[in-house]
């Protein structure tokens, strides 16, 4: 019971890490980005390549994954995404599906469609025995990393000038512009940061979520769901939503394996019916 809860939390923290950037994209620019999972996948492959081809230790690959995907995100934002901010949601959907397909095809071309092997360093493997329950060390590590990052992000959003600008822009972009906030620049930075976090999540997640070229589509709905349920512009909303989904999904697969992913999709539809504007959403 406790073990399932813990696995769910670890899984949920990953979802949170990846989805946070998406919540900024959807909340700040009202941009439907179905390709967000591709950034997470990119981070995963960066991690794998760095480890297997260049012998970089696992922990050192994490910042690399973050930086590389952040740069990729920044470039794509500048070149492509930016042009579609005012476009219809249909255009955004088509564009991001296109991007997703391209990323999947490219990943298949370069790495094949099979699961990427992952060898964690010795000290992250195994279990610790605490109060009668076994906890996977890697999952403990995962939760710790995400908790630390959440604290940093919470601080960033609540206490810094940039955070204030992000919050103001999400709340009311027009008013924020009126106050002299460069909303476009705020979004560029937030987009890069969000992509980086997704990349980091993808790298951290290889052990938990797996990594193959179908990753962006396979997890797309989870990321979207975190945002739809959690709302945008806060750290708290997506965090609660991600943990909730993580626990639900793991519990569903553990206790009623014959129904499988059905649980999460049913939960999704029910949550969307009950909270059309998200758990912490505000009506526009």
């Amino acid at each position: 019971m406790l073990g399932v809860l813990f696995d769910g939390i670890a899984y949920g923290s990953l979802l949170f890490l990846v989805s946070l950037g998406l919540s900024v994209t959807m909340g700040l620019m009202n941009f439907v980005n179905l390709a967000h999972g591709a950034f997470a996948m990119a981070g995963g492959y960066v991690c794998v390549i760095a480890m297997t081809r260049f012998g970089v230790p696992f922990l050192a690959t994490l910042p690399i994954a973050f930086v590389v995907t952040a740069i990729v995100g920044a470039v794509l934002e500048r070149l492509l995404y930016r042009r579609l901010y005012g476009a219809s949601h249909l255009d955004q959907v088509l564009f991001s599906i296109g991007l997703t397909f391209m990323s999947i095809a490219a990943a298949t071309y370069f790495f094949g469609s099979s699961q990427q092997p992952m060898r964690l360093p010795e000290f992250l493997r195994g279990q610790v025995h605490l109060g009668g329950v076994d906890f996977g060390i890697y999952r403990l590590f995962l939760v710790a990393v995400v908790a630390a990052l959440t604290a940093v992000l919470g601080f960033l959003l609540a206490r810094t000038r940039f955070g204030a600008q992000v919050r103001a822009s999400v709340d009311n972009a027009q008013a924020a512009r009126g106050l002299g906030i460069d909303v476009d620049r705020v979004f560029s930075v937030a987009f890069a940061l969000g992509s980086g976090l997704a990349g980091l999540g993808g790298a951290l997640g290889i052990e938990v979520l797996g990594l193959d070229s179908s990753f962006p589509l396979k997890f797309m709905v989870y990321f979207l769901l975190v945002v739809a349920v959690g709302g945008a512009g806060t750290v708290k909303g997506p965090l609660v939503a991600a943990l909730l989904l993580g626990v639900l999904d793991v519990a569903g697969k553990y206790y009623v394996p014959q129904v499988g992913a059905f649980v999460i999709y049913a939960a999704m539809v029910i949550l969307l019916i009950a909270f059309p504007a998200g758990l912490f959403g505000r009506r526009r």
Partner: protein
Amino acid sequence: MSALRGGRLIEVAFWLVPLAAFLLLPGYLMLGSQILIVALFALSLDLILGYAGIVSLGHAAFFGLGAYAAGLLAAKGWGEPLSGLLAGGVIAALAGFVASFLVVRGEDLARLMVTLGIGLLLYEAANRAAFLTGGVDGLSGVAMGKIFGVFAFDIGGKTAYLYSFAVLLLVFIFLKRLTSSPFGLSLRGIRENPARMPAIGSPVRARLVTAYTIGAAIAGIAGALLAQTTQFVGLDSLGFNRSAELLIMLVLGGTGRLYGAIVGAAVFMIAQDYLSGVNPVYWQFWLGLLLVVFVFFARGGILGAVEAAAKRLGRSSQERAR
């Protein structure tokens, strides 16, 4: 007036193409009926997306429902095709009607999530209910009877092709009527500005519920048609990829025109047949690239480009006449 008659002529010519293909390309009838069926499916999306402006990422749900309904009927011994087709349409319509209440109340993002969610939900349901649907192996043992008790489905696919063609043509005529009617105009009004419609006294939700239900029914008919003509239902008939590809072909052909759905489906299916034969990975890459390029440069689709060219041509010929 003569422009109108010219339009009619082009329409007749358009519908002669699939008939000519039947006579001239007997080796491609299987692909041909697939194109006709997918075109029907694309038409159903055109009604709700192209006319009513509802973005859907899960339209395959209704296609799959229709396919499983018709397929299961036949597999359990009821092989009469037309009633099976009707059953597929009715079941999908019922599901569409229920789903529509969720779909019409939200904004784009909520709609995307709901349609996506419903699609995935049904996919998982079909996947898990293997005792009924065959799960990942698909539903086989679909044994079809004769159409009108006369025309049996043949190996060469002649009956399947003509059957699909007839259904497509009938549904098309219905949709043509529907979209040029006051109801169709009100859907376009909703697409153009959902905020103004209630201010001129229009019950927006009721209209969208109707449109969505009709769209679902037609998707169900298309699914049923596929199940009957291929005598097989795969899990992929419900999948996200099918919904996404449908969206792509409709936009490729041009939305809100009906003919765009058919042209898009034909071009897409032929390109897929050719290119994915070369290498499926490349196909997906080029498809993605096409979409991205498309969004930036050619939003009217193929028919949009043709219309623009025709307009330019018309204008220059008018100038010459002067």
